[in-house]
């Protein structure tokens, strides 16, 4: 198993290098001069001044040199700084990552609990009306765009019932209750497709285990249904469910771009969207890299967990 983990970690290196290269190429191909962005509409800037700025940011160097420089800084934990605010990106991310992390974790909790409970129930009551309804629900869940769900939720809970604010953010440390009020609608909007995918997968994964011989034996020797479920079905169905849940949590990161935009949350998703609109190169470059790295890390953790939990891999 140790060998498996080492291999898995080593595989991460070329992927991350590839990710950084693709990010760099895309960002550098975005048309428009970053120096123009930096000086804004100040037409008084002389060519010498522009040249100086270019040199200060290393933009006068050949592209491969720029790439290597960037990577060198990133490895040392220096993500560069924003062209607009000139604040270091690590500071900016320190402020915004917690927002996105809270949103993602909240969505994962809101989504996974009903997904697993209903998914297991649907599999056990296979081919009943309940099972059919759950299937229909999962199909609708993966089809509704999160901005539509957000729109409907805002309409109901903010405008009609006036229970929750339609937009805005309060830090958790300032007022935990108000924080939850501002986070709950975004989290639900983000959670729906996650819940649907997980529910569907839970159902099929439990169905697969239910058909196995050892479950039939457990039933045949007269174990009560509860015990069969807890001791034989769930531990075996649980491992693949965990894998999918992990991958899907990582996928939630992409959804934050839209959801944070709708609800005006100052998270990473909104930050990167604004940075692209403003052509703030260093921000786009480094934040996309950070997001992709988180994605790769989560899938690594899931794979390693899998190896720990699956006895067949553990003994190897």
């Amino acid at each position: 198993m140790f060998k498996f983990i080492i291999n898995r970690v080593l595989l991460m290196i070329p992927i991350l290098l590839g990710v950084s290269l693709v990010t760099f190429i895309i960002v550098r191909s975005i048309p428009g001069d970053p120096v123009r962005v930096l000086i804004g509409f100040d037409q008084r800037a002389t060519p010498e001044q522009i040249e100086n700025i270019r040199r200060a940011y290393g933009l006068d160097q050949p592209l491969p040199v720029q790439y290597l420089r960037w990577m060198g800084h990133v490895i040392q934990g220096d993500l560069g700084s924003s062209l607009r605010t000139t604040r270091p990106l690590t500071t900016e991310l320190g402020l915004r990552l917690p927002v996105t992390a809270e949103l993602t974790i909240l969505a994962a909790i809101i989504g996974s609990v009903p997904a697993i409970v209903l998914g297991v129930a649907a599999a056990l009551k296979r081919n009943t009306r309940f099972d059919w309804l759950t299937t229909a629900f999962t199909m609708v869940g993966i089809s509704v765009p999160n901005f539509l769900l957000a729109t409907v939720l805002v309409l109901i809970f903010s405008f009609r019932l006036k229970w929750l604010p339609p937009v805005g953010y309060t830090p958790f440390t300032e007022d935990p209750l108000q924080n939850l009020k501002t986070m709950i609608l975004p989290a639900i909007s983000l959670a729906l497709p996650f819940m649907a995918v997980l529910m569907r997968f839970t159902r099929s994964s439990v169905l697969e285990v239910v058909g196995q011989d050892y479950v039939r034996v457990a039933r045949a020797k007269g174990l009560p249904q509860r015990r069969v479920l807890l001791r034989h079905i769930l531990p075996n169905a649980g491992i693949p469910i965990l894998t999918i849940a992990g991958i899907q949590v990582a996928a939630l990161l992409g959804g934050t771009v839209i959801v944070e935009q709708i609800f005006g949350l100052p998270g990473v998703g909104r930050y990167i969207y604004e940075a692209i609109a403003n052509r703030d190169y260093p921000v786009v470059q480094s934040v996309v890299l950070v997001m992709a790295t988180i994605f790769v890390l989560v899938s690594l953790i899931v794979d390693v967990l899998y190896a720990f939990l699956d006895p067949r891999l553990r003994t190897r």
Partner: protein
Amino acid sequence: MAASDTKTLAASSRVARSEGTGGSGRGLWAGILRQRLAVIGLVIVGFFALVALFGPIVAPSGPTEQFSEYRLQGPSSEFWFGNDEFGRDVFSRLLYGARISFQVGVIAVGISALIGVVIGLVAGYFGGWVDNIASLLMDVLYSFPTILLAIAIMAMLGNSLANVMIAIGIVNAPTFMRVIRGAVLSVRRTTYVEAAISVGGSTSRVMWKHVLPNVTAPLIVHASLNFAYAVLAEASLAYLGLGNRPPSPSWGSMVSSSYGFLQLAPWAAIFPGVAIALTVLGFNLLGDGLRDALDPRLRNEHG
């Protein structure tokens, strides 16, 4: 495991081929019609295609025509789905918007399929370092959150409808590549491919004549499911103001531009949103049904 996969695939591609040659598509159609949800999907997709084709012809007014005295008016006998903040007819705009969604779906899926099939075919057929490099490339693309990568590509290419299709096409290509590569790997081991190679068939001939026809079944299923994805992605990008900016009647941008008037005129944002959800649902249901119909192993499970 590998053996049963090959078997499934061979059986499923037989169904696909009997459909493809135009003779009796009964196996496939019967398979789809047996499932209630898939039938609903088929009806939705058919309706959507009709609207995309003929919508602009039957639309009561133009997509940007403004009836200023009806601004933010609710649904009426004259304007079925109400009017938006400029007094435009939401119903007519929806009819025009269907064409945009359909167009983006077809072309984006076409691009993904082209990239995915070529790379997946080559990677699965040759294996070795070719496979390693292709797989690494696809793993790299796969590591980006999809919407984020699409936004970044849009920023690089510029904001236009054509670039939306390209961006979505690139972003979804890795999943096609994985599906095709997996299918090719198992077809590659079959005796008929070995036989074709041993009687001296050229590599391109074997790939084109013997391998490709046998991976069409998973390709069709994946294309249908991916259409749903592409429509959703286009709507999301349009929502963020990428590709189809107002006043274009793209469903996604209709939702976002009317969001500010949600309290006064919810219909202007909700109807296009529901149109997106219904269309995506249709392709998802159809794709699922196709998969079950083309995969006998799953069909028995539902039986």
